[in-house]
């Protein structure tokens, strides 16, 4: 009987080329090559720039991860790769590489869902996930509330952003405030010195009628517009824009809605664990507010350290290891990279 599965995870859905290696829930390597600086001057991720960087970084990043783990490919029990969702051209680099590594080594291949991987990464720090659990995934690409009944196969989406992702709103508001890309960390830092109650920005989809149709959904584009208008008016009046205060007030609006709806989802589904994941889960206010509200509601809140919240290969490896341990079938070699992969498909076991 073999012990814990050793799995390599490959992640290329956006601008990070990530290769992680885990043994069971133990993190052995987390190598990431980022092209974020190349995107900064465009104020957003440029797909072609990201894809080019992935191709260049792919093999060296795999080698770095293996070196860090002190392993060779022959030691692997599985290779997991993000099959979607994400940027199509970027995904294809990782999927192409993973398939080739699998054929060359005979190691079974698992095409997995990026969003479930964001949940699975928490096992590396906080151990097995109690099921069911609510996942709150927030990043530049997604803002979702997920119900995880079985991380190896039954994950459903309770709600998601109907327009901008939360991270996107951070980027856009950062731009309005003259802060660099990606906006999240800069807004977080500025907000430390700001007044959260300085101005009350709108909380999208929280009005009574919206709570009927979009109970667990989010909307952040109206918030972004409200911030833009507020800044405009202020400038038209010849007054300075207090960057720290606006950052704090904006951040508060985002975190208020995210945590409020996640707690509501947990309560209404009788779930007593909430997991945070995605780049925005590194936000200090989101963590603080979620902690406070979870405590009040008697809910356990879990989140991994910031480096594991952002996109990386470790999360893909963590999900892969969970699938191997659960005896889930590997994927067929002809599976596609699916930029709009359904959130409810955890892995492409025996199907496309």
């Amino acid at each position, binding site marked *: 009987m073999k012990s814990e599965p050793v799995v390599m995870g490959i992640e290329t859905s956006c601008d990070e080329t990530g290769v992680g290696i885990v043994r069971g829930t133990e993190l052995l390597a987390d190598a990431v090559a980022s092209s974020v600086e190349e*995107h900064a001057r*465009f104020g957003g991720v440029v797909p*072609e720039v990201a894809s*080019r960087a992935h191709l260049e970084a792919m093999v060296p990043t795999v080698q770095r991860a293996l070196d860090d783990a002190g392993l060779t490919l022959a030691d692997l029990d599985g290779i997991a790769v993000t099959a979607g969702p994400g940027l199509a051209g970027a995904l294809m*680099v990782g999927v*192409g*590489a993973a398939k*080739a590594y699998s054929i060359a080594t005979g190691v079974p291949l698992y095409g997995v869902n990026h969003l479930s991987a964001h949940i699975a990464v928490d096992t590396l720090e906080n151990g097995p996930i109690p099921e069911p659990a609510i996942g709150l995934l927030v990043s530049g690409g997604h803002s979702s509330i997920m119900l995880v009944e079985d991380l190896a196969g039954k994950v459903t989406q309770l709600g998601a952003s109907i327009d901008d992702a939360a991270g996107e709103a951070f980027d856009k508001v950062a731009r309005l405030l003259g802060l660099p890309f990606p906006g999240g960390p800069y807004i977080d830092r500025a907000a430390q010195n700001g007044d959260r109650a300085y101005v009350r920005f709108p909380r999208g989809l929280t009005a009574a009628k919206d709570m009927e149709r979009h109970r667990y959904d989010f909307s952040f584009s109206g918030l972004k517009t409200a911030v833009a208008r507020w800044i405009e008016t202020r400038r038209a009046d010849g007054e300075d824009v207090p960057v720290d205060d606006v950052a704090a007030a904006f951040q508060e609006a985002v975190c208020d809605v995210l945590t409020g709806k996640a707690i509501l989802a947990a309560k209404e589904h009788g779930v007593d664990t909430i997991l945070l994941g995605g780049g925005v889960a590194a936000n200090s206010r989101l963590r603080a507010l979620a902690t406070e509200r979870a405590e009040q509601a008697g809910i356990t809140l879990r989140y991994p350290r910031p480096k594991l919240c952002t996109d990386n290969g470790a999360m893909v490896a963590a999900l892969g290891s969970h699938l191997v341990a659960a005896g889930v079938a590997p994927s067929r070699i002809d599976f596609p990279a699916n*930029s709009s992969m359904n959130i409810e498909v955890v892995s492409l076991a025996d199907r496309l």
Partner: protein
Amino acid sequence: MRVLAIDTATSAVQAALVDLDGNGDGLDGDDLFLTAFRREIDGRGHVEKLAPFIEACLAEAGRTAADVDAVVAGIGPGPFTGLRVGMVTAAAFADGAGIPVYGVCSLDGIGANTRGRALVATDARRKEVYWALYEDGAREGEPQVCKPSDLPETGADYAIGEGASLYADQLKVPAETAPVYPDLVKLVELAAPRLLAGAPSEQLTPLYLRRPDAQPAPGPPR
């Protein structure tokens, strides 16, 4: 030696196993032997089809990945997304199998088979072609990209390749009507000096010829 050859620089997704004999002082027709070959014309199917094609080639030849001694890959020019799939597949297969990988210009896989003065043109999408000129199979200068109507006076006797057949009506020289794709055996032949000399493995860099479109992603993938 047994070589895995891959090219995805055109709408042809293709993989082959090619046996290469020879001792380094010149090749003749008997030194290259195509043992297995898979090709499908599907400009959007690279990531789904290429890996199964490699598996099928290995199975047909009665071989496993461990029997492959080197990888040769077309490095374009070609539409980026598909091209990258072939190149990352070649690089990762080589890394996974612990064998070297070598890159060859994909246009040479067509041009090196031509006689006389030939214009090789492949489909670059956006109503453009990737092209290069060949004199008795030898390329003149570096590959280029432009609109078919903007091609310079080349003095070519004829044009050949997917781009030539697609834009035959805009070319100043007669075009082969049947599309022709990079010949994997030819790619291996062109890499033979490196293969036989045991040259160091290469970091494959695509012949992009175009700068990336500097447009940020429109929004979150949904």
